[in-house]
Structures are given as structure tokens and as C-alpha cells.
């Protein structure tokens, strides 16, 4: 579903405001047509239904594609997923894999991370579905740690307005 939000974070806030049942997995997807926008897809626990806002006609195609990608576990950036609430502060890679639905940590341009490596979550973890794996892209961080690639509050561009 989509309201045509331009940015991931706006779409996330919109969804939080809807008040979703527990156990939902929610992903954002970037779409370029008919104009740049963000689509949100939900995977609901078995037997649970949710009343969702209607998708505007012009965003139907991108919404359907996002839903299919999420269902097939080949696309979607998850912001609500099993165990996300426990991913705060610093955790080891092994803990992160054990405590959440994330099934893989990849280091940008690096080797497979050692399970004991510490990861500074910055209290903001957004893994992506890739090849059937809920994958967290990580990069080097201070003090020999890793951190998620996605930085929580990027400095607004000069001017701040965009």
C-alpha cells in the first residue's frame, strides 16, 4: 500500500500511526513510477487481518510489485520485524542473528563478519530481503565495531529543506 510518500521515514511514521497488530512485518520499497514514492508492504501473522487504507489507482502497480517482492523475500527494507525491539545499543553479530528475524549480516566491501564482532545498532536497524534472506548490510564503525549501513538521521543537505 502507498500514500505516495517521498521518503522512507515518512512512510514509516504513517504506518506507526495506523496502529498495527503485533507480529506484523513491515517493509518499505522504493518506486520510481509514475513518480518517485515509497510503498509499504505488510506481512501479517496467520489468522490476523488488518484494515488498510486503499491504494490510489496510480500506485496500484508499484504496490502490487512491492507486495510480490516481499512475499517472495526478494525485496523490501524491513522496519518492523520479529525481534527489532531487542536490537538496541551494541550487540554481537551472533546475538543479532539469534534474537531477531535477521538471517544474514553482510559487510559492505568486506568479508563475512565474525559472529563475536560487536555491532553498534544506533537503535536503528533496517535489514532488507535479498535472495530469501533478511539481510543487514553493515559497514565499519568506530572502535572496531560494525554498524548498519543505513544511518538513522542523515544530516539534512545544506539548506535543510531537501
Amino acid at each position, binding site marked *: 500500500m502507498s500514500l505516495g510518500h517521498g*521518503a522512507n521515514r515518512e512512510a514509516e511514521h504513517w504506518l506507526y500511526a495506523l496502529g498495527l497488530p503485533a507480529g506484523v512485518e513491515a517493509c518499505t520499497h522504493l518506486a520510481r513510477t509514475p513518480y518517485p514514492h515509497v510503498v509499504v508492504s505488510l506481512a501479517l501473522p496467520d489468522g490476523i487481518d488488518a484494515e488498510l487504507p486503499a491504494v490510489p489507482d496510480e500506485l496500484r502497480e508499484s504496490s502490487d510489485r512491492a507486495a510480490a517482492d516481499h512475499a517472495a523475500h526478494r525485496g523490501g527494507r524491513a522496519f518492523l520485524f520479529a525481534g527489532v525491539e531487542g536490537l538496541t545499543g551494541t550487540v554481537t553479530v551472533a546475538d543479532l542473528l539469534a534474537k531477531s528475524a535477521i538471517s544474514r549480516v553482510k559487510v559492505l566491501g568486506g568479508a563475512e563478519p565474525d559472529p563475536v564482532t560487536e555491532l553498534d545498532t544506533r537503535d536503528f536497524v533496517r535489514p532488507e530481503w535479498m535472495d530469501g534472506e533478511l539481510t543487514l548490510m553493515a559497514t565499519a564503525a568506530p572502535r572496531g565495531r560494525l554498524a548498519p549501513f543505513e*544511518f538513522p538521521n542523515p544530516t539534512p543537505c545544506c539548506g535543510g529543506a*531537501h
Partner: protein
Amino acid sequence: MGHGHHHHHDLGGQPADVPEALDLSIPDSELSPSDVSRRGFLRGAGLLGAGAAASVLATPGVAHAHGDDHDHGSSGDHDSKGGFLWLAGDHHIHTQYSSDAQYRVLDQARHAHAYGLDWIVITDHGSVAHAKIGVDKVNPDIVATRGQLKDLLVFQGLEWNIPAAEHATVFVHPGRNEVAVLKEFENAYDGTVKNAGASTPENEALAIAGIKFLGEAVRRRRVDGALFLANHPARRGVDSPHEIRAWRDADPTVAVGFEGAPGHQAAGIPAGGAGGRGFYEGSPSSASFPGYPLESYRTWGGFDWMTATVGGLWDSLLAEGKAWWISANSDSHTNYLDTSQRGPDSNFDLNGRYNDPVYGPLLTEAGDFWPGQYSRTHVGASSFAYRAVMDGIRSGRVWVDHGGLINGLDVRARVAGDRRSGSGTPLGGVMRVKRGTKVELTIDIDLADTPNWSQFVPVLARVDVIAGSVTGAVSDRDSFTAPDTKVVKSFEVSKGTGKVSFTYSFGRVDRPFYVRVRGTDGKRTAPGVLGAAIDPVGPAMDVIGDADPWLDLWFYGNPIWVLPS
């Protein structure tokens, strides 16, 4: 994005519209006397660089340096090397006329001057308030500063919100129409003023029209020159390859390059703001070009991924024969460890400016350096003059450095064995030789001999020669790789002071290629983005929260083309 614009292709095309002195399709007899003498000087000095042409492949005979000695009238303060006066500058500086900045023009200019710069461009953000008020009001401050600091060239420009894309420095030659041209440009073409930020074909076309407007302002002699440099091009992934190509092709005498390294170099200092170097902290968005990898959203050794990637986007333009130059700058808004703040009782929207800054708390989390404190763009000019700086930039006679890594750089493509001081083809130039001629590259470097602005003398550890075939216009305007380009030679530097010289031989040349150089203090390196076979010891991706810019220094030179025929 994702749709293709297909403007004219370069190969075999006529040079695009250029200032008349530079437009070699206009015979001398049809030029004004002053343009004839200007062209004569430029031609004689080998200063008609590749930048004045639609493609280096389409402009025979314009860019040879030659053997004549000529007097550039250098003053003692400036570095005269290789026959040029090398003038250091910064094309991206904000003042109290930007909603997110605070300094007076004079504050920025005095620091730039103290830190050793020869020229600066004042580039406040395009905005509704700036278009209405600031663009006018900043001018008297700039004019006054020119009067107060006689040996600093102060251009007026603005930071354009490119429709459908990132920001760009746009600036013009001083003169009676400088404000009028900038104001008309901003009101008609700024992405914020026109609410044209979205990545749509209409907005991309507006950007093209803006660049053409600037070229037209030069041709109509409203201003004596206008230049465009795309700022922080990879920061948000919204400058797609086809847009960059389209800007350049819209008018290659105006749109001449992008920031090889963004400003905000203090932003990743661990004890400071501990953000991303250059404030490169983003991730893909719905507005970004889908083809760009995650690596493009970070700096590499302080440089933008488009430039830092050997065989990447910049190289893909050079391999096409597109003259496209890189720069470095401060993007100064609020400076690390300064002690000032915006003036009290300011009303930016009403006045188009903040009140003059006053004493304030230590700015430990600010991400910027003062102009000249860390980043410098060195331009080989024919004299200490506004037009000479613009001509030098347009010709690509430019190299950049961080942290005062080196003092001077003279790179020349030469016929093997020719060591005459004035001969050879300099940065930005095109060397045309008979097929089979032996060609070599000479690199003469003045090592740093004085402390930089962190009070240490940088030590150059390595110099890399990067070369690739010129393969002509691409069929896919969104391509951003140059598969044939790689590091062909690395020179270790064993001396700590004085001068070092290196020669790299290309042997007998039979195919067109280009070459560029890069150097580093060697403190932070990694295999290149495209692999060790292409760039074995390249810049490493900067770490958010742990990027001390003083411990990772690089210089980059612009390319030289060698075209055998």
C-alpha cells in the same frame, strides 16, 4: 529518473556554443579586437584547453602547449610553475545570506586569505528569500570585500538547486551585470524557487535550460564568463549519469565539472560531530538513481565515489572524450572549533540574511573547515585575474589537495625525451601526435615544506598514474564505468622534502587514451571499489564517526588526453 535523454552526441559534432574567443569556428576576422587578442594569447600559451570543446576528439589543434617562453607577470606571492601562475581557491562558500550559515562575506574572505587562497566564490543557497533579497544584498558586501582584500579574487555566485538533482556552484565574472544575471537565473531556474526538485523529465529539462541561459548570457556579453560545477554529486544518489552528461553537453563552456571532493571534511572527526565525512551519510531513496550501489553514498579518502572509484563514473566521462574536471572546496557554513554564532534577533525570511555573527560557544560539532584551511583547488592561470581563473578552470588546468599534502604539481604529457621547460601538454590538455610517437608523462612535485593548518608537515608516500583508453561516446547515457581504466603505475616517494620527479613511459602510442594522477600520504588505503586488479592501493571508504581528515590526505590531478593519428 531512469528515462534517457538523448541529446546530440559528441563524436563528429561541431563544438557547442562557446565564448567567441574560444570558439574556433569563428574566424579571427569576425572577432572583436579584444577577443582576437584574447584568443591569440590563449592559443599562444596553449591555454585553449579541452574544456572549451564539445569533445576532445572533435577539436583538432586547440590544446597544445608549446615551447615559447612567455611572461605571465607573476607576483611574488603566487606559485609560478610550468609557465602558469597557480592560484589556489574555493568555489563553494556560504555566508549569512544562507539560511543554514552565519558568517559575513568578509569573515570568510579574511580567513580564506589568511589560509593562503587567491580566489573564492561566494555561493549562498538558491531560495525564495535569496532570489528576492539575498542575491542583491550580498553584492555590496562582496564589492566592499574586493576593495579591502586586494590580492584576493572574490566572485559572486550562488549554490543552485539543480532542478531534479543536487546542488551546483554557479558563478559569473564580476561586472555591472553580475547580480542581474545571477538573479534572473535563480528566479527562472532554481529548483527550490521553481518547486522543481522532483526527478521528472520536465525538471531535468529545466536544468538544461538553466545552463544554456548562462552560456547565452556570456555570448550576449552580459557577463564575461559563467561556470557551473556540480556539488557533492554522489551524496544522495540523485545526480544520475545521464543528467551529468546532459548538463555538460548543454554547454561545455559553462558546465565544466563536479566536486571531486565535497566540503564538510570535518564532519567525521571522532571528537567532533562524529558524522559522515562530507556529511555523506545517506542511503538510497525514491529519488535516487537506482543503479548506484551503496558504496556511492559514502566518501572514499574524503573524495566523492564518482571521482574516487578508478574506472568509475568520472573515468567513464573521460573515456568518452568528455572534458569534465574535478574540484575541492570547503562548503563552509559553520566551522569546526570556531567561536561564533548567528547575530541575535535575526529574521532571515524578512531580511534575506542573518544579523552579523557575534561571539558564541565553541563549535565542537560543526562539520566544516574555513576556506583554504583543508581543501584547495589549484588553478593554472595566465595572470592574477578573474578571467584567468575562469579560463584556467574551463581548461581543466586544475589539481586539488587536502591538508596541504603537496605544494606544487606539474604534470605534462611529452614527446619522449623532450624536457624543455615550457613544452608538453599540461593538465586538462589534449596532446595530438603522430601514431607511433613515443610519449611519456612527467610528474614534477614540490613536496610540502611548510606546516599545514593542523601544524604538521604532510609527507607524500605514493603517487599513482591512472590511464584508460578513449572509447568515444557511450550508447547508454547512464553508464558509469570505464572498464579499461586502471592504475598503470605507482611510484613510492622516498624523499621527505624538496622536489620529486617521476617519468612514466607509454612507449609508442597508437590508440587514444587519457591519463591522470593521484597521490596520498598512504595512511589509509584499501583495494579500489572495482577491485585490486584495477586499483590495488586506493582510498578506503570513510567510516561514519571515525574519519579524521588530517590522517588521510590525497591529491588528484585532472586528466590529459593523448590522441595519436
